[in-house]
């Protein structure tokens, strides 16, 4: 702390803080347009000039650090005159028209200095002579150089904040203006995140959507909530006008995103007001859906489910929860399935993404969630990113990574397909699909051979100590770098480099993704990763550990609150008698009524339905008809069931098979909480009303529980549901809505005074012994192989611009503008062999099904491998995939199917 004065006011601030920042925080409103606290100082606008005793001339306060004893003059006639002079200069080159659609910092200053009155301006505007041209080519924004004051904020927003570096100036002096890439926005690498829009102080860059509707003076409310898309959990501020969302801004200064958003978070709200929204309950009559009243729908559902339960037993019923619904929705949903249905047949799409990761992590280290706060992605020395297209699927986590890279972080990318992270990587390993165990065993082998293990850590924190280690050493002994290289196709030197960087960096962290988990060997893959982490001691400290960035905004929360066939809320196994007793008491149900028998998982539920063992299902906000593997099989399973209820916001591929469709609410229409990838419990808040008769999800479930004779308490609001949840969930026990008003909290948070937990495993692992466990596993070649009939291996994944089954993202115009069409990536060599040209329409067939799509020739993939995004309903990739499951986690191998391609 240093003490200094501004205009004779004594001020204290941490040594080295930015003078302008400190002044403003202390209510001294020094003007300034080019400075933003998230960016490095630029010193361009000169409005923040001050005098500092002992320094020559006028000093831009945004470029000065405070120091002990500094004597600063921020306001005197000379300084104010200089500022007025500079503002006059800006008005000379600046088009100061204003249409009320954006907040304009420059305009505020113009008013403050009285320059709104023409008689106070002393230069005639000259900007029209400069002949600037608007750039209207981007789907999301418009740039008007005549409004640009050349403050550099957009350039730095794109570069320093988002790590994309798309923008720069061209031309010189007064003629300079911003360009994207080497020309126009629409032809550049801009991905539409809008950070530049958010930080532009003058409205030179403005949003396109709602431009003709929005009027800042007519905004009714601004609601801070959580983004409905991926598992980063970005905090957004929704602007509501005439009952509609008209804008979404990133919220500055809070975790996890500090104002940053990706294109989905900023622009992806359009679906909320889509005319396609379901607004009335529908019942199928003779193959056609008819609108009915809620009463009719509830009666039918209660009657049918009760009939099935009575006739076939509770285990003939099942529920799919939703990674998009709130904790409160999901908590009540699993409670409903467990009490009203009386079964543990409850699961959701997590089974399809990270079940293997969670299974392996629970066994080996005791928690199924990421061990580190998001900030560590920037500050760790070495990041090992495997099977994880982090830039597209976790864009804001990736901004931390890119910022780390800019400061010299070592990044190891392991991916069979090129990802946008590769250019930032120190080394990229491109293994053949399905050879991860061999690759990781190879790395372990290299680490051991070079003596890079952490013996002390193994002895103190690994179960079985060096003895257990010796077993791993023995098993991996055959995986020499040469052998691993032969299986994986990765050069031995790259394996050595990756092993060295990971093992010997002061701190190393793992980010694992669907590329690892969605395989028949998914659990084994993650075991291998954990082995490598444990023997090098790259866990148990800050900035070390393993993180599976989660796909959906509440995929973490839904499992945390018990939407699992194996676990009650808080990961307590259904078999745990004491817990069942405790929960039964809170729920006010007889302990015997809670089944101790583990239920079926997502894909197993469909298999059971196919075999006639499951007769009825309640699907809340899930779309298995795109997301499940082997869709032909899923379709048949849905058809064979006696009664299917789907609660959703839209008609989906799945609702076609429903007997009753219930219109539910989007995230913007309800209060609640979500848990993001770094275990942060975040508030969601209501911004708008449900359309038509659509209802909030938990209220539907609540009502139905009553009608099935298992009424739940009358919750007055979501906060009361959360309180009940906290009572049965030890990791959330200390959290309440009141606390969340002060900011998000990372679980575990066992009591009211606990601050939450940033990093897991600092002292112990969450296993029964408190130690981590090694699981040495052998590499097993895949069953599914390329052969003469199906010569190519298909990989699948996601794109930045779409999300999951695209029911939300494809209802947003700007996202469609970026991409709205399925494709298959194929290596130039293969394209040549199969006579395929770029843009050609092709049929892709596997042993299970077929689809049509369009060829994109690209060396992003290896020869012999092809890649498709799975978002597009017209080319359903999961018609091709298998439902041969990982035996431990029951996850399906979306990442590997043998296919053939023929031109149509």
């Amino acid at each position, binding site marked *: 702390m240093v003490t200094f004065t501004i205009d004779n006011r004594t001020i204290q601030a941490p040594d080295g803080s930015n003078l302008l920042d400190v002044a403003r925080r202390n209510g001294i409103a020094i003007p300034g347009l080019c400075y933003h606290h998230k960016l490095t100082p*630029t010193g361009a606008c000169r409005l923040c000039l001050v005098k500092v005793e002992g320094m020559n001339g006028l000093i831009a306060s945004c470029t000065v650090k405070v120091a002990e004893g500094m004597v600063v003059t921020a306001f005197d006639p000379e300084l104010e005159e200089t500022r007025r002079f500079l503002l006059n*200069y*800006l008005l000379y*080159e600046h088009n100061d028209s204003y249409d009320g659609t954006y907040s304009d910092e420059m305009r505020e200053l113009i008013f403050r200095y009285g320059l709104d009155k023409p008689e106070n301006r002393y230069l005639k505007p000259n900007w029209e002579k400069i002949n600037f041209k608007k750039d209207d080519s981007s789907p999301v924004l418009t740039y008007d150089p005549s409004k640009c004051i*050349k403050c550099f904020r957009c350039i730095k927003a794109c570069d320093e904040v988002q790590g994309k570096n798309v923008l720069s100036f061209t031309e*010189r*002096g*007064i*003629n300079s203006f911003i360009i994207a890439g080497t020309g126009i926005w629409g032809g550049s690498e801009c991905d539409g995140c809008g950070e530049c829009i958010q930080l532009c102080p003058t409205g030179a860059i403005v949003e396109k959507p709602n431009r003709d509707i929005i009027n800042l003076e007519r905004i009714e409310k601004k609601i801070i909530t959580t983004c409905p898309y991926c598992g980063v959990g970005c905090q957004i501020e929704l602007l509501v006008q005439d009952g509609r969302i008209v804008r979404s801004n990133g919220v500055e200064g809070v975790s996890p995103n500090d104002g940053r958003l990706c294109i989905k978070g900023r622009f992806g709200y359009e679906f909320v007001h889509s005319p396609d929204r379901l607004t009335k309950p529908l019942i199928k009559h003779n193959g056609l859906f008819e609108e009915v009243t809620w009463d009719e729908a509830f009666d039918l559902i209660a009657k049918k489910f009760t009939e099935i339960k009575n006739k076939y037993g509770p285990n003939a019923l099942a529920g799919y929860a939703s990674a998009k619904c709130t904790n409160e929705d999901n908590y009540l949903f699993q409670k409903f399935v467990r009490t009203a249905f009386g079964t543990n047949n409850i699961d959701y799409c997590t089974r399809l993404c990270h079940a293997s990761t969670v299974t392996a992590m629970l066994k080996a280290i005791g928690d199924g969630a990421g061990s580190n706060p998001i900030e560590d992605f920037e500050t760790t020395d070495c990041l090992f990113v495997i099977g994880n297209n982090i830039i597209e699927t976790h864009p804001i986590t990736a901004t931390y990574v890119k910022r780390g890279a800019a400061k010299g972080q070592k990044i190891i990318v392991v991916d069979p397909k090129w990802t946008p992270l590769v250019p930032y990587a120190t080394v990229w390993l491109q293994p053949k699909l399905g050879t991860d165990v061999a690759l990781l065993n190879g790395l372990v082998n290299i680490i051991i051979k070079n003596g890079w293990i952490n013996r002390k850590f193994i002895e103190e924190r690994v179960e079985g100590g060096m003895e257990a280690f010796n077993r791993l050493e023995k098993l991996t002994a055959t995986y020499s770098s040469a052998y691993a290289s032969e299986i994986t196709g990765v050069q031995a030197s790259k394996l050595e480099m990756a092993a060295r960087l990971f093992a010997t960096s002061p701190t190393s962290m793992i980010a694992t993704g669907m590329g690892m988990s969605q395989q028949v060997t998914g659990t084994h893959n993650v075991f291998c990763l954990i082995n490598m982490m444990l023997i090098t001691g790259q866990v148990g400290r800050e900035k070390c550990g393993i993180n599976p960035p989660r796909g959906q905004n509440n995929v973490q929360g839904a499992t945390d609150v018990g939407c699992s066939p194996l676990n009650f809320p808080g990961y307590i196994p259904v078999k745990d008698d004491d817990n069942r007793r405790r929960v039964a008491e809170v729920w006010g149900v007889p302990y015997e009524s809670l089944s101790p028998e583990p239920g079926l998982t997502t894909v197993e539920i469909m298999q059971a339905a196919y075999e006639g063992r499951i007769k009825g299902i309640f699907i809340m906000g899930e779309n298995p008809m795109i997301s499940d593997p082997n869709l032909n099989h899923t379709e048949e399973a849905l058809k064979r069931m006696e009664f299917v209820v789907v609660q959703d916001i839209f008609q989906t591929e799945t609702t076609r098979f429903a007997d009753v469709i219930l219109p539910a609410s989007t995230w913007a229409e309800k209060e609640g909480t979500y848990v993001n990838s770094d275990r942060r419990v975040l508030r969601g808040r209501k911004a708008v009303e449900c359309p038509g008769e659509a209802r909030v999800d938990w209220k539907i479930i609540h009502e139905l529980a009553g009608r099935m004779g298992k009424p739940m308490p009358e919750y007055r609001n979501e906060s009361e549901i959360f309180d009940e949840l906290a009572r049965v969930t030890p990791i959330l026990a200390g959290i309440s809505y009141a606390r969340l008003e002060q900011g998000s909290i990372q679980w575990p948070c066992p009591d009211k005074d606990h601050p939450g937990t940033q990093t897991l495993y600092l002292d112990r692992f969450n296993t029964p012994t408190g130690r981590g466990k090694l699981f040495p596993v052998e590499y097993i070649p895949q069953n599914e192989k390329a052969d003469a009939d199906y010569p190519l291996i298909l990989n699948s994944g996601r794109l930045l611009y779409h999300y999951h089954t695209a029911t939300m993202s494809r209802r947003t115009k700007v996202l469609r503008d970026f991409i709205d069409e399925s494709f298959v990536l194929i290596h130039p060599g293969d394209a040549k062999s199969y006579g395929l040209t770029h843009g050609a329409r092709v049929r892709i067939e596997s042993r299970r099904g077929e689809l049509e799509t369009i060829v994109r020739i690209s060396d992003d993939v290896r020869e012999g491998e092809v890649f498709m995004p799975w978002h597009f309903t017209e080319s359903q990739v999961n018609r091709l995939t298998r439902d041969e499951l990982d035996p431990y986690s029951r996850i399906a191998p979306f990442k590997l199917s043998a296919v053939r391609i023929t031109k149509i």
Partner: protein
Amino acid sequence: MISEKRIILRNSGVINPQSIEEYIDAGGYKSLSSAFASTPEKVVEEVMASGLRGRGGAGFPTGIKKQAAADRDTGKISYVVCNADEGEPGTFKDRIIMETNPHLLIEGMIIAGYSISAKLGYIYIRGEYYDSVRRLQHAIHQAYARGYLGNDILGSGFSFDLEIKPGAGSYLCGEELTLLESLEGKRGYPRIKPPFPTEKGFWDKPTLVNNVETLANLPGIIGHGSSWFRSSGTEKTPGTKLFSVCGDVKKPGCYETDAGVILNDLINDLAGGTSNGKPWKAVLLGGAAGTFVPYSFSGLSLCYERLKEQGATLGSGAVIVIGNERKLIPLMQSILMFFRHESCGKCVPCRVGTTYIHERSLEIPAAGNEARISILEEIVNHARQMAKSSLCPLGQSPILPLGTLQIHFTEMIATE
């Protein structure tokens, strides 16, 4: 009648600039051995004692800069960068050194590198100086081949590499921090100062940035000692100075004399007098970012201390002679056009100001006498505000020619 005093240019036009042998035969690279025989600290002390001031324009004492850049205790990386951008209008002295005696600069750079324990040096050359680039490149090859560059130079244990980077036609890139930005491959925008290059320069490492002529003085200082160096020039501006004399003179050219030479001696004795033999109207000293002086200054001694007293500058040593028949208004307009064109546009006062005052200057010819005076006054006021609030020295420069025009030539402009 004075004559040239050639120290830096001693071998120019005498030896073949493409031959390292001729340079060595003329005593070249001997100072390097002297430097190696002494310690880096001693070399810095010698330069301090010499009183050498930077020849790039600002005249900052070179020894002090070296002291600041030398970061030997920490063993950190540091760099030497030669500023050979020579962008100041009317200045063409660095080019003469590089084209007629490139090894002198190379030797100077190695000595500078040794003195601050840098291992790598860059020469940032004005992009249009094709011959300078070619000759220096050739000389660098020769120096490597002879072991004056590279690893373990002359068995001293000191290693030094040297690279050339051509600029891309921006005046501002001659400003040292902008130059470093450009050298890093970025757009030529100035950095915020402080930190100075000696603290955070190239890739944020301590960096010594010196002008060609400054560095070319080092072999002499180290070879012959600081007192020898001080035997030329004045007390506060020791050594010789290269003057680029151009404009309305009979023999424009680059002349080396004692610093402190009398202005008219330089013009008359060395540059052959004005073209028409009549007393000149004005001299622009130091280029566009320099100062106008009237004929009453003809007896002025061209050294930093005297010029400063008179509100003039030496700058880069440009001496632009304006004959009695030439008009000042077009000259002023072209200087303002130059600043408008070269303003990078990063900061508001310079970006807008250079445009505005240039536009205003275009209105002078059509204005009446009184109006001319008031326009000139307005322009000067703007330039003063710009000087106060601009981010980098470019925006602080227009006041120099404009202010001196106003002081000495208002009358003339009003009636021209």
